[in-house]
């Protein structure tokens, strides 16, 4: 992952005044939140299913080695191959080697966040391979030279005018006078362009939402059908998945699929749910000649057994992003990480190291709405607090807000001094508030008063008044 998370503050500041982006972000709310709520309300057992989904993942993570090796056996039995990759680099090499062995020139890709995590596209392109994203959102992001801004809706930051502009720039061989203002026309054009890529591709790469140990199947859920064409037309299919995608049984996968689609897009089930097991068998009407699964660890196994293990339950539904007030206002790119929003702010420090991403866990009001909607019931706010605690412990005594916090805590631990100091402070603030009862600008509190007035204190503390005998 080659994220640049350090510029969150600046990037967020820019995002907040980007009118086009703000308009596009409005769609996140209007679309995803309402649709999820409707899907939840339509399924009385939704919350029970969330419990089941959580329990399936808890169980799987406790026996991950077992389920992964069972999965590997089943894939091999079906004629497929499994490649274990401990690091991003190993995963990239494994993919390249398969492509080289197949004499590949063109690679098509279905949507896969893991390939974003390992920076696969750039790597393959450096190795003289042509890579074509086939998910519409991913394709848009690819032709713009961007990264996805949402884990299930990569181009959610764009509007149709921008897309029309990009298509006209990119698809120069098409008649310039063509109509492109309607989304239907945009989709039709993308189909037309991508069809060529599907047919000429030598290797198709997809991700996986689940790896089923019982059957050796990999599962993808999509809404465009591009994943199916990506994996059935070329002669080689590579599945790129991280190890925590394993689930024990087909039944477990279907439980998870039921909560995944509802949490993500509010659909009962995605338009396409595709199960792949091994290469084409004799008599199969279609399918690849070779079937490879690259299993990426990239630090995940060291998360097992530690305080962040629960994060590996994440099924990448995106609900925590959609419901996050920060994400809603700054969008995904500001985070500078492949994984934005609450899940990203927990995951990025795990994958990249806390030094790189230490401030992401602070980009959160701890409002708890992410945890309330997470289909896996991951205690995201608690984990963000845990990162803050680690960061706090690692910081030198005079760094950032540390001295102020320490001073406050020391005062609060010493009631007499606390009452003296705060008593003087509120008298002063009350004076500054004057007859208006609020303060518009205050030295040392500029961060508060930049966008808000500070309501002035009433004057004397409650405890002082109570002590003096006042009762109402």
């Amino acid at each position: 992952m080659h994220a640049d998370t350090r510029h969150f503050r600046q990037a967020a500041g820019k995002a907040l005044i980007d009118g086009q982006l703000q308009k596009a972000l409005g769609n996140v709310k209007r679309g995803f939140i309402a649709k999820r709520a409707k899907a939840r309300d339509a399924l009385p057992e939704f919350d029970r299913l969330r419990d089941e989904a959580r329990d399936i993942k808890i169980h799987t993570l406790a026996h991950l080695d077992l389920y992964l090796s069972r999965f590997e056996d089943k894939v091999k039995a079906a004629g497929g191959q499994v490649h274990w990759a401990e690091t991003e680099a190993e995963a990239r090499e494994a993919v390249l080697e398969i492509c080289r062995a197949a004499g590949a020139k063109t690679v098509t890709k279905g949507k896969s966040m893991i390939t974003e995590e390992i920076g696969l596209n750039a790597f393959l392109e450096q190795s003289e391979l042509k890579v074509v994203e086939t998910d519409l959102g991913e394709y848009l992001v690819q032709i713009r030279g961007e990264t996805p801004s949402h884990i299930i809706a990569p181009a959610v930051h764009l509007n149709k005018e921008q897309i029309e502009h990009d298509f006209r720039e990119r698809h120069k061989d098409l008649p310039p006078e063509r109509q492109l203002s309607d989304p239907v026309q945009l989709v039709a054009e993308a189909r037309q362009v991508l069809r060529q890529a599907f047919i000429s591709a030598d290797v198709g790469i997809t991700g996986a939402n689940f790896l089923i140990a019982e059957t050796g199947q990999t599962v993808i859920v999509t809404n465009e059908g591009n994943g199916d064409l990506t994996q059935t037309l070329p002669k080689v299919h590579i599945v790129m998945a991280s190890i925590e995608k394993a689930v024990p049984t087909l039944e477990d996968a279907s439980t998870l699929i039921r909560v995944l689609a509802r949490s993500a897009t509010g659909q009962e089930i995605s338009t396409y749910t595709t199960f792949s097991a091994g290469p084409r068998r004799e008599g199969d009407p279609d399918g690849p000649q070779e079937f490879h699964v690259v299993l990426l660890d990239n630090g995940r196994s060291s998360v097992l057994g530690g305080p962040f293990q629960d994060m590996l339950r994440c099924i990448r539904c995106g609900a925590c992003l959609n419901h996050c007030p920060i994400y809603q206002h700054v969008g995904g790119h500001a985070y500078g990480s492949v994984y934005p929003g609450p899940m990203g702010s927990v995951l990025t420090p795990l994958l990249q190291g806390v030094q790189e991403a230490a401030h992401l866990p602070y980009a959160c009001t701890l409002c708890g709405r992410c945890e309330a909607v997470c289909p896996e019931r991951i205690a995201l706010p608690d984990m963000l607090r845990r990162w803050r605690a680690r960061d706090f412990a690692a910081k030198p005594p005079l760094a950032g807000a540390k001295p102020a916090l320490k001073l406050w805590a020391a005062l609060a631990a010493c009631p007499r001094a606390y009452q003296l100091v705060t008593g003087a402070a509120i008298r002063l603030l009350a004076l500054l508030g004057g007859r208006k009862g609020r303060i518009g600008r205050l030295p040392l509190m500029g961060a508060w008063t930049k966008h808000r007035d500070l309501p002035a204190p009433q004057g004397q503390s409650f405890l002082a008044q109570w002590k003096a005998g006042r009762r109402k």
Partner: protein
Amino acid sequence: MTDQPATSGSRPRIGLFVTCLADLFRPSVAFAAVKLLEDAGCDIEVPPGQTCCGQPAYNSGDDASAKRLARAVIDAFEGFDHVVAPSGSCAGMIRVHYPKLLGGDAAYARRAEQLAAKTHELTSFLTDVMGVGAIAGRLERAAAYHDSCAGLRELGVRAQPRQLLGGIEGLELRELAEPDACCGFGGTFSVKYPDISGAIADEKAEQITQTGAPLVLGGDLGCLMNIAGRLKRRGSRVEVRHVAEVLAGDLDTPPIGEGD
């Protein structure tokens, strides 16, 4: 709920956890809480050495300070029948987070659990524990209600304040477009990321304005100061008050962020 309802004849002894914001910025909220609790048949005591529940430290990762303050709160409050705070986030800190924070502390783990079980946010204590239905009063106004995140999601406080306000004649409650959404306060978040916080607060202010109500109520001073601060900066005339003040019939005190 592990509390027993008050046994007849004996008035429950309540330790009022004032909260630092009510203590320092808005004592009228604490006086209102005292009145409401007394009217409900409780005896109130206010432990004099109380300061802060430790939440700013806890949410900033300063676990050592948070633990120190949590232990002090336990020492001061564990002797009461119940502990009540006019704030969902401070009550949530004690009720939900103290047991996690002190889980590994041999001397305090059990005591943290015990205190958690008898600590309540004010409106939920009145309804859920004391069985108060609605509180009689009169106020010819429309009011929007802001559910604060910690009260809402950590303690399940949503129906309780509305139920109590149901007895105020003339009061018409209006719901916000996104009642589940945060106001952007987030404690230290508000000063760490002021631009983002301000943008979220602005959206909340916008939704409040859209209800057309001249008044907005809520149960947490942190959020209310944030909301009032943003509304006033926008030049809005919408008044902001703590729900306890309205329930206690105190409308003489100027609204949050306004003078007399």
